[in-house]
């Protein structure tokens, strides 16, 4: 106590203290001399980034942290300060525009976040203060407050349940918005607390906040008048989490233990950091290259300028005297300003407009996703949703897919399929509800058509009805006194006979696992109805419509290690029975062997069919056995230390020597086209990892059903089960297994050639890897010695060599951890996470691309995702179709932009050699500014929005095409070099072509000569036409928009040039281009050189296009024309391609 208080005095160390003490209702407790109000954070949730005051500086700072923005700012400042060839407006205006638009967008987004925060923080809650109920804003709740929550409200902070309006001291919550599980969970009040909360005097000691949703350890000291304080243990079943919703319970009271950013929800919430695509990284890399080119150009020019000026007579020829100011300036300062001037002159090589165009392309392009009617789901009346447009192209680069299981791969909709009683198979047919309606399909071997004894059948069905934690859903909409109503109804039903369906109508059950509901419903089909709990009694209606009552003595809860659960009940006749159900692997060793063999066959067959199988066993407990178990359980439940271990020991002791009755098979229906989608993804070279919070068996069977695991797949399992099998230390076993698997999967695997790396269809042995959460945490954060990093890399290597990795029993943050680990591994592959529940949010946020499935319930995933689609099957089109196209489009956009600016600025650089390195611009200021904004921006934008180098259907049909663009193939250094060389070639050609023409500047038939602006205009005309035609050549998909924009911008260039040169502009001091363009057009030689240079610069491209080998049958074209000619089997493609499309290739096919 003293130590704790000391610690609290040194406030800061609080984190290090492993527990916190909470005074319920802030009332001092007798045991402590004085109440020291502990300091905890308030209950405010802050997800916003800015406030009104810091918005401007913080936002500007963040924007200028972008390398490009900073660069443009520098250029702008240089133009303002130094005498430069172009005016500051040319770079200042676009920069201002970009910054403002971004700031407005970000400000708006933050405003939305503020609004959402306020909605949560200002929510009014009722707090008990000194016996009075007071309304408080949610953000003002302090740790220790007693809070009242009524039905369908969410809990404002993490609460310890003190009191519930339900008689059985429980309440139901759904944690749909937390971990995605929409079922009702039962939470219990702290036992034996007083009904009168005002007089309750207690302290709660609990651990410091930690993000694990399922872990909570604490204890409560209850002080009664001068009595020895009673101690109650607190577990996760007593803790109500912020964000969960109260259901089926009128109201509860709870004491706040964690508040605000310390709640488990907030700790599990990761800030939505901005995601950057790989393309953006490539852009930044190219930017650096161009920056180097720019700086070296400026350096070369500056150096040459001073070398040249050193030659006699060149520094200051009589005709171009310096001003006094120039003469006075320090030589080095002059050099520096010259350098800056050159920088400004060449700065157009890195255009502001590229960022604008890229942003626009992404923004506009993302509409095609939300417009796509293939993504429209009639069930929920919604299509795809795009939350961020920054990552469109990333969809075409995915290497790892992390998918959630429940609700994503499966529909989370369990159905009882069949059961097996004592070795006989029963398959339920819809025909009847009587047991006679059982139809025996294929019994094992010779005993076909036989049935198990009636006794066994009934025992089995009773077991199904009793061994669960299912609650009967109480009638809703009837307001108060719910519990009573139900009783009445149940009685009423019992009064009637026969076929009337009880309250346990379909969907009338509430359970922590949908399997249990399925089983109870299954039993119902065979005539045994579970009617619900009545105080401690379970009521079951048997086939004769008699109600049997069983006293529930103990529930031996399910846990992932035991992988079974049991109940101990006492029958009316006084027999104590234990019913147990669980995974085959955990039941078989605990029952008599001769029974096992009869059932194992069924179980295995069912498992391979993708059903979830459970075995059911029972045991009659003698009085001694029961007493022993009872005391053991009670002791263990009260233990403060190692409670779980102790409970486990008792469980294991009780659950032995049972006899096996039968097995069940439950189907979790897969999502539509789940298997096809997964196959397509794997065909596209993506590795699929299933991350689920579910049990291993279930997850495994789903993987089989989705064809992620094939029959031939060799499974490498690294789970708690494989670790505890031997009586050795876990770490040792882990080490051993890891090494073994590594040897099998990595070292022994035949060396794969680069080309085949991504092909899974090869004859190689497929490996599937299975790991569970507990083991994963062992691997990832095992003892801080040197081994851990070694484990991690071993683990990663194994995983990378496996076709499919299944991670089960994952906590939300563990999912994110896995994603992060893969994301950061060598080669930093692009990851995609897809999920539907709030438990997937962390991994959705962590992955490069997060996809949310618009499930029927819970919008958390959708809200935090980058893209949301209604169904899993849509993922295929999203990645293989849209993703591929977006990647190709943006890659081309980026390369083209760099290219066109290189050949734009290169002549200007070369011109410096002919103007005495005086920073004379080759092009007029209007051309310099308009080039990127008007003349060449629209065609590339249209192209990057509409281009389909391969049409969508072909992309979808041939998943392998996705591999063509994998690993950022179009933005590698190879393609970049190609485009750069092309730019250099064309730039040189433009400049020197005109240079040789101008060796005699008399280009008109009247003998008059052309000056420098004519020179620049000719180069510029060639430039604009060449880059536009180059784009036209790259365009494979000419819609009318492409035609309009390409020819339109050329026409606009002509029109603008005429117009710009046709008028004396009153606001311009220099009419430099006055009639230059018109004069140029009157010269035949100018025409001829323009045509010549355009053709010559495009020649290599044309040659490459023609000589390049056609890439396979599905390269870039539709199937042969013959198909559409037949008319009958119209491919879906042909409908998309109306008459307009008449291709040269078709003709050439026939000609050649």
């Amino acid at each position: 106590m003293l130590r704790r208080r000391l610690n609290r005095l040194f406030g800061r160390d609080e984190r290090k203290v492993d527990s916190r003490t909470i005074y319920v209702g802030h009332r001092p407790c007798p045991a402590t001399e004085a109440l020291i109000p502990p300091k905890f954070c308030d209950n405010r949730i802050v997800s916003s980034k800015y406030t009104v005051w810091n918005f401007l500086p913080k936002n500007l700072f963040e924007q200028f942290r972008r390398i490009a923005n900073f660069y443009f700012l520098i250029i702008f400042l240089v133009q303002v300060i130094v005498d430069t060839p172009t005016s500051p407006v040319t770079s200042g205006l676009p920069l201002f525009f970009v910054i403002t638009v971004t700031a407005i967008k970000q400000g708006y987004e933050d405003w939305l976040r503020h609004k959402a925060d306020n909605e949560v923080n200002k929510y009014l809650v009722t707090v008990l203060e000194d016996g009075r109920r007071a309304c408080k804003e949610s953000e003002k709740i302090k740790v220790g407050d007693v809070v009242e929550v009524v039905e369908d409200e969410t809990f404002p902070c993490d609460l310890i349940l003190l009191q519930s309006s339900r008689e059985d001291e429980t309440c139901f919550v759904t944690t749909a918005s937390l971990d995605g599980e929409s079922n009702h969970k039962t939470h219990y009040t702290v036992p034996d607390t007083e009904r009168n909360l005002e007089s309750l005097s207690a302290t709660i000691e609990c651990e410091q906040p930690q993000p694990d949703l399922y872990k909570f350890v604490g204890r409560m000291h209850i002080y009664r008048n001068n009595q020895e304080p009673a101690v109650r243990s607190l577990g996760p079943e007593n803790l109500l989490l912020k964000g969960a919703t109260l259901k089926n319970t009128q109201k509860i009271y709870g004491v706040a233990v964690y508040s605000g950013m310390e709640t488990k929800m907030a700790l599990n919430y990761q800030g939505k950091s901005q995601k950057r695509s790989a393309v953006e990284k490539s852009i930044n890399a190219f930017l650096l290259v161009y920056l180097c080119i720019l700086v070296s150009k400026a350096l070369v020019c500056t150096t040459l300028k001073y070398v040249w000026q050193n030659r006699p007579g060149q520094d200051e020829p009589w005709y171009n005297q310096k001003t006094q100011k120039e003469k006075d300036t320090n030589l080095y300062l002059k050099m520096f300003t010259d350098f800056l001037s050159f920088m400004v002159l060449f700065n157009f090589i890195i255009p502001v407009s590229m960022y604008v165009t890229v942003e626009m392309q992404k923004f506009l392009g993302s509409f095609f996703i939300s417009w796509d009617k293939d993504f429209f789901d009639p069930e929920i009346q919604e299509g795809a949703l795009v939350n961020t447009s920054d990552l469109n192209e990333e969809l075409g680069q995915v290497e790892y897919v992390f998918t959630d299981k429940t609700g994503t791969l499966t529909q989370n909709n369990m159905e009882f399929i069949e059961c097996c009683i004592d070795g006989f198979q029963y398959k339920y047919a819809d025909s009847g509800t009587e047991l006679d309606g059982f139809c025996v399909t294929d019994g094992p071997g010779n005993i076909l058509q036989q049935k198990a004894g009636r006794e066994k059948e009934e025992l089995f069905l009773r077991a199904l009805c009793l061994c669960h934690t299912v609650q009967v859903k109480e009638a809703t909409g009837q307001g108060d006194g719910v519990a009573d109503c139900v009783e009445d109804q149940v009685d009423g039903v019992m009064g009637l006979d026969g076929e009337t369906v009880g309250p346990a109508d379909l969907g009338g059950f509430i359970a922590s696992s949908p399997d249990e509901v399925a089983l109870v419903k299954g039993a119902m089909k065979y005539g045994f109805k579970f009617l619900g709990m009545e105080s401690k009694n379970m009521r079951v209606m048997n086939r004769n419509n008699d109600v049997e009552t069983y006293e529930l003595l103990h529930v031996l809860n399910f846990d992932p290690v035991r992988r079974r659960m049991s109940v101990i009940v006492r029958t009316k006749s006084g027999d104590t029975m234990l019913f147990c159900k669980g995974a085959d692997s955990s039941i078989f060793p605990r029952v008599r062997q001769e029974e096992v063999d009869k059932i194992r066959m069924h179980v295995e067959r069912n498992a391979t069919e993708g059903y979830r199988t459970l075995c059911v066993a029972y045991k009659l407990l003698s009085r001694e056995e029961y007493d022993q178990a009872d005391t053991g359980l009670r002791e263990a439940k009260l233990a403060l230390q190692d409670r779980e271990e102790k409970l486990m020991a008792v469980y294991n002791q009780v659950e032995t020597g049972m006899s096996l009755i039968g097995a069940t098979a439950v189907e979790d229906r897969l999502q539509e086209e789940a298997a096809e989608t997964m196959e397509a993804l794997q065909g596209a070279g993506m590795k699929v990892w299933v991350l689920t919070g579910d049990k291993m068996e279930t997850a495994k069977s789903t993987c089989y059903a989705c064809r992620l695991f094939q029959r031939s797949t060799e499974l490498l399992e690294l789970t708690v089960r494989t670790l505890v099998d031997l009586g050795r230390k876990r770490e040792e076993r882990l080490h051993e297994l890891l090494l073994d698997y590594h040897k099998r999967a990595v070292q022994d695997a035949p060396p794969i050639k680069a080309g085949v790396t991504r092909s899974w269809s090869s004859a190689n042995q497929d490996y599937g890897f299975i790991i569970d959460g507990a083991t994963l945490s062992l691997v990832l954060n095992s003892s801080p010695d040197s081994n851990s990093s070694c484990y991690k890399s071993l683990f990663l290597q194994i995983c990378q060599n496996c076709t499919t990795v299944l991670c089960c029993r994952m906590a939300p943050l563990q999912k994110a951890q896995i994603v992060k680990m893969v994301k950061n591994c060598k080669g930093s592959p692009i990851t995609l996470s897809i999920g539907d529940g709030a438990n997937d949010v962390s991994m959705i946020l962590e992955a490069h691309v997060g996809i949310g499935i618009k499930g029927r319930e819970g919008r958390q995933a959708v809200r935090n995702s980058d893209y949301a689609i209604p169904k899993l099957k849509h993922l295929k089109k999203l990645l293989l179709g849209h993703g591929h196209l977006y990647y190709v489009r943006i890659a081309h956009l980026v390369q083209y932009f760099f290219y066109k600016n290189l050949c734009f600025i290169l002549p200007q650089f070369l011109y410096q050699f002919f103007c005495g390195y005086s920073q004379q611009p080759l092009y007029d200021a209007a051309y310099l500014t308009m080039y990127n904004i008007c003349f060449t921006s629209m065609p590339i934008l249209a192209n990057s929005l509409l281009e389909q180098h391969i049409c969508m259907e072909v992309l979808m049909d041939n998943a392998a095409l996705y591999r063509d663009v994998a690993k950022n193939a179009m933005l590698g250094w190879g393609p970049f070099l190609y485009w750069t060389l092309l730019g250099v070639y064309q730039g040189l050609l433009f400049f020197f072509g005109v240079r040789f023409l101008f060796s005699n500047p008399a280009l008109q038939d009247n003998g008059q000569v052309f000056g420098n602006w004519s020179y620049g205009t000719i180069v510029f005309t060639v430039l604009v036409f060449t880059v536009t035609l180059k784009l036209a050549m790259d365009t494979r998909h000419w819609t009318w928009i492409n035609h309009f924009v390409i020819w339109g911008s050329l026409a606009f260039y002509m029109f603008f040039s005429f117009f710009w040169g046709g008028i004396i502009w009153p606001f311009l001091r220099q009419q430099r281009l006055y009639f230059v363009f018109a004069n140029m057009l009157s010269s035949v030689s100018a025409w001829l050189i323009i045509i010549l240079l355009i053709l010559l610069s495009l020649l290599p491209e044309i040659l490459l296009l023609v000589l390049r080998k056609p890439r396979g049958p599905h390269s870039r074209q539709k199937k042969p024309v013959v198909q559409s000619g037949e008319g009958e089997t119209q491919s879906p493609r042909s409908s998309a391609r109306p008459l307009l499309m008449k291709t040269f290739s078709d003709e050439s096919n026939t000609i050649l």
Partner: protein
Amino acid sequence: MMKEELETTNRPDNTAFTQQRLPAWQPMLSAGIVIPGFVLIGLAFIGIGVALFITSQNITVLEKDYTGVETTSDCYKCSNPSDKNCTCKLEFSLSNLFEGPVFFYYGLSNYFQSQRSYGASKDEYQLSGDLDYFKTPISACSPYQYDANQNPIVPCGSLANSMFNDTFKLYQIVNGTKKLVPFDGKGIAWWTDYNIKYRNPSVTPLKNAFNGTVKPSFWSKPAYELDTSDPSNNGFVNQDFLVWMRRAALPDFRKLYRRITEGDYARGLPAGNYSLEIAYNYPVLSFGGRKKVVFSNVSWMGGKNQFLGIAYLVVGSLCVVMSMVMLIVYAKFKFPEDD
């Protein structure tokens, strides 16, 4: 976070545009189109190239350097910059008729009219006749903005100040007597420069507009005396001035000086001996420059330029050759795949 509903999007429009199914033309540059195309383009280019080459060949050019670097040159005596009002002679003879109309250019080398500060050093408002700018020329004209007495210089700036001021007179020696070849000083500058861009202030006499201003220091006479004989060729619209003010793109340039279109010489310069009398004023040796005169006739393509014709011939034949190569490649490798 408690906001439960996002607005529902309705069924997306099923239009060709939103579904990315716009009808599209999908060109393929296949051999079938490229090979004939290349042959056609190649042949066309060769044709143009031949025409250009022949035209260029038919243009006669006579180029004479008169800087006076060589001691043998008559102008050597004038190359000393301190020597004012020096005249020298350049004699040449023509064996054939120099077909007219003959254009007479002067040329300068290593002269950087394209320098930025030089080119910017002028006041276009002044040159468009705005009297306000006669008083206060633009600062870009510095150091030729004001003279030592702070009088504004009109026309201001380095560009105007350094106007070429050598003058030429061409005589044909007929039987030992010098016969003046008449020069036409009109139509040597761009029509738009002469008629629109450059304007004299609307003050008569023109001289009054220049009150309170001084002439550029290098000039021997003020702007309003550039051509006293013809008011429409005087001041800022003097065509020699206009020609000078249109900056050359490259450091080696020529500018049109006169046309020979009149009298006996309308058809060209007949064979015979000629003497060009040069008033040698313009210093170029200080910066290593050269001066030359060029007589040339022009064609539809302008002055003589072999480059264009040769380039067309080369590119044209390149196209034809490449189409041949492509044909061979296709014949060898592509046919089996096509069926």
